[in-house]
C-alpha cells in the first residue's frame, strides 16, 4: 500500500520531537479524523529555519509526510519553506495512496501554521502566508449504491 520511501520514513522518522522555546509552533488536523500534526520551528535572525521537529498522531502516511516535510524545510529560508507544497512532499515520498493524499496537505498546512505562529509572535507579516485553517478534513465520499 505504501512506497518503500514512505515505509522508510515511517520506520525511521526524521526530526521527531519537540523544540523548547521554538520560534513557531503549529498544530493542524483533528483527532476526529485521526490525524494531528504539530511542527516546531527554530528560525534564526536571517529567517533561516535552523531546526525543525514534529509530533504526529496519525497513520503511516501522516508520520511519513511529517518526517519528509521537516527534511524539506530544514535549513531553508521562510520563503523557500513556503514553496514546499504537499505535491513536493508526495513526490519526495514516491507517491501516496489516493485516500492518503490529505496527509500531505496536512504536512503543508502544519508548516504554514508554525510559520504563522512565528509571524504572530514576531508581529510581522510573511508575504504569501495567510492564516491556515486549523482543521483540515477532506474525506472522499464515493457513491455507494
Amino acid at each position: 500500500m505504501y512506497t518503500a520511501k514512505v515505509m522508510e520514513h515511517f520506520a525511521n522518522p526524521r526530526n521527531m520531537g519537540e523544540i523548547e522555546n521554538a520560534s513557531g509552533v503549529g498544530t493542524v488536523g483533528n483527532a476526529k479524523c485521526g490525524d494531528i500534526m504539530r511542527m516546531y520551528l527554530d528560525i534564526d535572525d536571517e529567517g533561516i529555519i535552523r531546526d525543525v521537529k514534529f509530533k504526529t498522531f496519525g497513520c503511516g502516511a501522516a508520520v511519513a509526510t511529517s518526517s519528509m516535510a521537516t527534511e524539506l524545510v530544514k535549513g531553508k529560508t521562510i520563503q523557500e519553506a513556503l514553496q514546499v507544497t504537499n505535491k513536493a512532499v508526495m513526490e519526495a515520498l514516491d507517491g501516496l495512496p489516493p485516500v492518503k493524499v490529505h496527509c500531505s496537505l496536512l504536512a503543508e498546512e502544519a508548516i504554514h501554521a508554525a510559520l504563522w505562529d512565528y509571524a504572530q509572535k514576531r508581529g510581522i507579516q510573511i508575504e504569501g502566508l495567510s492564516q491556515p485553517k486549523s482543521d483540515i478534513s477532506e474525506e472522499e465520499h464515493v457513491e455507494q449504491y
Partner: protein
Amino acid sequence: MEKKIYLDNAATTQTRPEVVEAMLPYFNVMYGNPSSVYEFATQNRKAVDDARGIIAKALGAQVNEIYFTGGGTEADNWALKATADAYENKGKHIITTKIEHHAVLHTCEYLKSKGFEITYADVDEYGIVKLDQLEKAIRPTTILISVMFANNEIGTIQPIKEIGAIAKKHNVLFHTDAVQAFGQVDIDVNDLNIDMLSASAHKLNGPKGVGLLYIRNGVKIRSFIHGGAQERQRRAGTENVPGIVGFGKAVELAMASMKERTDKEIKLRDYLIKRVLAEVPYVRLNGDRHRRLPNNANFSFQFIEGESLLIMLDMNNICASSGSACTSGSLDPSHVLLAIGLPHEIAHGSLRLTINENITFEEIDYTVEKIKEIVDKLRKMSPLYEDFIRKR
C-alpha cells in the same frame, strides 16, 4: 520472531489442510455440474447435499433450510432484501443495531433509499443491544429484526435467545448475522428462535467465496439471485462444489473440536487481556469481559493511532487489525467503537487481536512486549500525549 504471528482470525482464517484435501477432487476429478442428469454429476450433487447435511446438523436445522451463497455478505443482503420484498405488504419497518457489519448496515441504507424505515437500536458500553429499547421499537409494520450473533470488532456476543423470544412474541421475523459466531459458539436455531442466519466459510477455516443462509421453513422467501433452478429454485448459479464441500468439511472439523478449541482460546485470550491491561498504561478493553468470542481481544490505546500501530506490529511480524478489515482505507473510526461510546480519538487508537488455537503463550508474550514497545514509541511521537503530560 521469524515466524509470522497471525492474530487476525476475525478477518479471515487459514483454510485447513484437511479442508483443501476434501475440496481437491472436485476441481478436476469430479468436476461435473450437479444439475446434470448423468451419473458422473450425481456424485457432486451428493457431495453438496452431504455438506448441507453436516451444516444443518451443526445448526440444529433441517437439511432443506440451508441455502449456499457466495459468502456471508451475499447471505446478509439476501436475508434483508428478500424479506423486504416478500413482506412489504405487511410493513416497511426493519430493526437492526448500530454495531452490525457493513453487509447489514449498507444493505439497510439501500433499503432506506427504497422507502423502508430502519431503526438502529443502541448498544450499551459493552456492546450489548438494549433489549427494552429493541422491544419498544417494534411497530405493527415491523417485518424484521436483524441482530448479529457476535460482533466482528469487539467480539461481544448478543443475548440471541432473548432477542429471538422478543421477535417471536411480537410475530416478527428474526435474522442473525452469525458470520463470526458460527463455529465458536453453540447455535441451535430452534432453541434460539432464529428464522434466518448468515454464515461464511472462510471465518472458520473453510475457503473464501462460500457462505450460507439458513431460512426457516415457512418463512416466505424470494430469490435474491435469479436464474437456474439450483438450491431448490431459491439461489441460482452453478454450485461452487469444491467450496461447498470445503465449507462442509470445515464445519465438521469446527464442531468436533469446538469445546477443546474454544477452551484453549479463552485461556490464551484471557492471558493476553490480563497482561495488556496490567502492563500498558492508558488502555481499555473494548467489549464485554466475558460475553465475548473466545478468540477476540480489542483494546484502545489512548493518544495513538491504530494504523501506525498496525504497521509497526507488521514490521515485527505480527498481523493484526484496527477494526473490521473491510473498512480499512476508510478514514472514519469504527462505527462499533463509537456506538459503545468511545470518543473519536480513542476509537482511532484501537487494536483488534483475534487468535486461533494454534497460537502459543510464547507468541502472546512476544506480542505483548511488542505492543508495549510500540505504544511507547508512538506516544513519544504523539502531540496528544505531549498535551496530556503537560496538563497533568
